[in-house]
């Protein structure tokens, strides 16, 4: 096994809360190479032979197990496309933690484009946590373009926590999902951009089966000169229910375009969208200042709460 250096350890900690080697199944990838892998009796991880990436197979009935597959890039100038496919059996209950951390102190761009596909079996419950993080003060950009595809069988549940709070210069996040009967998708996205960052976040959720439901909520903050485009779309093709919400704070010269959209192709599709963009309310700042915080501290607390 390749040893992790201090930078890699810090990145793993940021994106996957890992302080060491995780329990359960895992595949740790650094600078384009797998550095450590573990499989369990129920969870198998195999490298793909045709392209870069792994297949993760989870047996029927696997409960209370976890899979960690974080990636870190600490060398400047690495560009990679990685395909990770999850084949999840029926009646499982599994936590999956992914995420990518880039430290770029050099002058060349570093880019990681991860394509994650989830095939979720009947009545399985998956919690998926994905964190993206960038650091380093080089002129090279930190670029992440994750694509997530989720295919959900009858009665399955997918809860996704997607977080990108710091340091990623450019990102185009695309998530598509297809839900069969009584499948349920819950998405909680947290996004913060600063400096001159650009972020695009696209969700396209297709509710195909009767009784399926989706709740997609994005909370974001755009500060400095950053720009975000949030494009949340739910399509109701059955007797289903869907809700999307973009709730954003703009600061400094930050700009946000929120485009929540709904398409109902069935008379029994019940779809709702909400979108709100605004600056931090002056009364909120004043309230926290009367509690002894400076204006900058008050802003930080408001943002922290909002993105929690």
């Amino acid at each position: 096994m390749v040893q992790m250096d201090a930078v890699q350890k810090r990145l793993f900690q940021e994106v996957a809360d890992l302080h060491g080697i995780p329990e359960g199944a895992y595949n740790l990838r650094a600078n384009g190479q797998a550095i450590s892998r573990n499989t369990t009796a129920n969870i198998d991880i195999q490298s793909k032979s045709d392209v870069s990436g792994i297949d993760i197979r989870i047996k029927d009935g696997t409960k209370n197990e976890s899979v960690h597959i974080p990636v870190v890039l600490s060398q400047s100038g690495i560009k990679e496309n990685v395909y990770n496919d999850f084949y999840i059996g029926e009646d499982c209950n599994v936590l999956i933690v992914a995420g990518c951390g880039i430290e770029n102190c050099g002058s060349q761009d570093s880019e990681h484009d991860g394509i994650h596909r989830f095939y979720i079996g009947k009545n399985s419950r998956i919690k998926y946590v994905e964190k993206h993080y960038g650091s380093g003060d080089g002129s090279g950009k930190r670029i992440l373009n994750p694509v997530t595809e989720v295919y959900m069988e009858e009665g399955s549940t997918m809860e996704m926590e997607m977080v990108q709070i710091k340091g990623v210069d450019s990102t185009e996040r695309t998530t598509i999902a297809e839900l069969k009967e009584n499948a349920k998708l819950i998405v909680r996205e947290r996004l913060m951009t600063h400096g001159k960052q650009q972020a695009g976040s696209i969700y396209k959720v297709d509710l195909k089966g009767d009784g399926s439901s989706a709740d997609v909520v994005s909370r974001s903050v755009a500060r400095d000169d950053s720009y975000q485009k949030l494009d949340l779309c739910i399509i109701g093709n059955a007797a289903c229910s869907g809700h999307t919400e973009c709730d954003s704070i703009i600061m400094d010269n930050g700009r946000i375009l929120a485009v929540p959209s709904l398409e109902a192709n069935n008379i029994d599709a019940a779809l709702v969208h909400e979108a709100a963009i605004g600056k931090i309310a002056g009364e909120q700042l004043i309230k926290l200042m009367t509690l002894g915080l400076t204006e900058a501290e008050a802003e930080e607390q408001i943002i922290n709460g909002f993105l929690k």
Partner: protein
Amino acid sequence: MLELKNIVFNAENDGKNVGILRDISLTVDDNKFVVITGPNGGGKSTLAKVVAGIIKNNSGQIIFDGEDITEKSITDRARMGIGFAFQQPVRFKGMTVVDLLRIASGKTLSVSEACEYLSEVGLCAKDYINREINASLSGGELKRIEIATVLARDVKLALFDEPEAGIDLWSFNNLIRIFENMRKERNGRSIIVISHQERILNIADEIIVIADGKIVKKGNKDVILPEITGTENAVNICSRIQ
């Protein structure tokens, strides 16, 4: 404790300069419970905000504990020991009640300590401690949390701007009890409450009546209250609801 000297505040209204506070001078001694009353639009809330630094007076001087704080910011005044409970508390999406109480106390408040402040304002702590301060809270609940944020701070001077506004009768009875307790356990701290409510006026040491930007009456409760009872400056909660 607090001394206001010749406070003047003017506001622009339709291009005209309107006097909101017109030469207000007063002193609040240590350990006093003072209620400011008077007709709506008379300048009471503005005066409280001037003391907290939320509104900047055009002229006059504010002395707090012997120090001139006229030019000090909201933050500086808060750190010197001035607390302010807003008439209309704001909501914070994502922030929980315990988060706000922790900010207020300025320390790593334990959950049980936070619960004590909530119990003091009549909220069942375990139901509220992890609630978000968002639109799911009623006006009365927000108001009590607002008061708890002032209790959680170690202030020398606590200002309450119309604490009874927007709360129901049941909450109002609780509110009276909170102020009675605060009055009992003052420990050198002074309290200024802006209120029209007879029951709050009744627990004051001193009453100040402000109308049209000026102090029109000021003195011991026993002297002032009989003079204003039955007027809009001292109303009974039920008559106000009717």
